[in-house]
């Protein structure tokens, strides 16, 4: 019998690979719609990863808010403007010569840090952490984090008004 692969490991590897591929697709696709759909892919795989980390409520919210609302808005705007593919980039030596190496250095140092400073992190098992349901999250949100919650709601209100004001066609 084939040894059953550990689903936690397999799941992580599959999802992580998918996420990285989608992420690459986001930054490499020529067309904005393709980038947007790739980003949805990243978000979907992240949602499943959240599920594995025990954040089930957050996973659902990730799908509803990010994939279902924010990205739909992006796709909507892209289609509305229908700007077509990006023109081939002008040579951007500064970004390529300074930015990308610095970025790689940044990534290397961060990874080094993580592995050095956190050598014995607990291993992730699906179902080992069960505090991510709606009830505990809600309880914490409406007690300890009530003020930030209210402030955020105010922020969203302001954003709605701001977006309306900005996007409204000026009547001349």
């Amino acid at each position, binding site marked *: 019998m084939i040894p059953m692969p550990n689903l936690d490991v397999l799941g992580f590897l599959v999802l992580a690979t998918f996420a990285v591929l989608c992420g690459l697709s986001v930054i490499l696709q020529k*067309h904005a*719609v*393709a980038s947007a*759909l790739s980003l*949805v892919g990243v978000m979907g795989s992240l949602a499943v990863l959240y599920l594995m980390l025990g954040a*089930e*409520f957050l996973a*659902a*919210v990730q*799908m*509803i808010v990010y*994939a*279902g*609302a924010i990205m*739909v*808005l992006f*796709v*909507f705007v892209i*289609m*509305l403007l*229908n700007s077509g593919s990006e023109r081939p980039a002008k040579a951007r030596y500064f970004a390529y010569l300074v930015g990308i190496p610095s970025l790689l250095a940044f990534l290397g140092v961060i990874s080094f840090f993580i592995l050095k400073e956190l050598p014995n992190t607990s291993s992730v098992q699906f179902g080992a952490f069960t505090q991510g*349901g*709606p009830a505990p999250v809600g309880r914490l949100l409406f007690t300890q984090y009530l003020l930030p919650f209210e402030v955020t709601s105010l922020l969203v209100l302001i954003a709605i008004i701001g977006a309306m004001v900005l996007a409204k066609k000026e009547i001349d």
Partner: protein
Amino acid sequence: MDFFLVSLIKIVVVFGAFMTTLAYLQWVERKVLAHIQLRLGPQRVGPHGLLQPLADVIKLATKEGLIPANVNTFFYILAPFLAVSLALISIAVIPFGPEIELFGVRTNLELTSLNIGVLLILAISSVGVYGIALGGWASNNKYSLMGGLRSSAQMISYELPMTIALATPLLVLNTLDLRQIAERQGGGWFWNWTAFSYPPLLFIAFIVFLISAFAETNRVPFDLPEAENELVAGFHTEYSSLAFAGFFMAEYANMVTITCVSTTIFLGGWHPPFPAPYSNFVPTALFWFFGGVLLFHGLTQPARRWDRFTFPAFGVISLGLGAIFLLAATVLPIIGQILLPVFWFVAKVGLLLFLFIWVRGTLPRFRYDQLMRFTWTFLFPVALGCLLLTGLGVALFG
């Protein structure tokens, strides 16, 4: 391995039933619409056109799948695929009946049990817009694009009142698990159902949910994305063959899913409207009543020649079904525990689906600005008010 086996059986049964429902739902719709308009509807293929769905499938499958010039092929193909697969997922978390014991195996009458089932359904329905928007955009056709944009805007807008209306009963039920939701409404008369608690608040929420459901599934009177007199056929103008069938199926699958959800959350799921010993005989009575009517009509006053044979045949089948339910209710509880809840669930879903078709046969289409104004200035505030008042009610009396 029992778990896998049972799951496999359930998947086969549910999937088969679901697909058959989708196919025949379209037949039912055509029939009902025809009768509303005093026509006969499909009649040629099989008795009373009963084989029409099969013929449709063959027709769609054998047609040439056109891919227009200058389209992005990948997205063009992806769109219907996305639409139909997203539409089919949600059925997995709908509970059709209580926990049963069959041959020593205990299992739930649903494919999978999630403790955040409601959220999953919301997530899936919020992602569902991609299929249509993408299809409209990838067709590289301005009518399709307009249809896709309209549907995105419409679905985003109506998702708000729908979500809020869906959140209202959750205040009362205090869980996100669809199975628990259904169970908490059972055991008694129909006023235990959520739609009738805190009257009339939750009933209003139910109505708001239904209206938003019409819009979410792009059905009349909210079928602006496919308004044929303005947009040819909307987002699927360019589609043909199986790709078209994908969109078509997605629409009906969404309809079935959303009626299942409203049945589970608002109308008590599989619970009968009045307590158990008496309600068990309702299906038998109904089937026998219909069987009697069919026999009577077929034998005494057939309207057409072939009715003399078909009506009595249907009548006999109906009588037989009634007998099976009688057995199930009395001497064969092992079947009854499955059949009776499923009967009630299907009956409620069927009624709601009939409502969808009935509305399609009756109401004219909205204008686009009316549609948007309706949701933002009426539906949304009403849903919000319901939510707040119900919250107040739960806080005071709950």
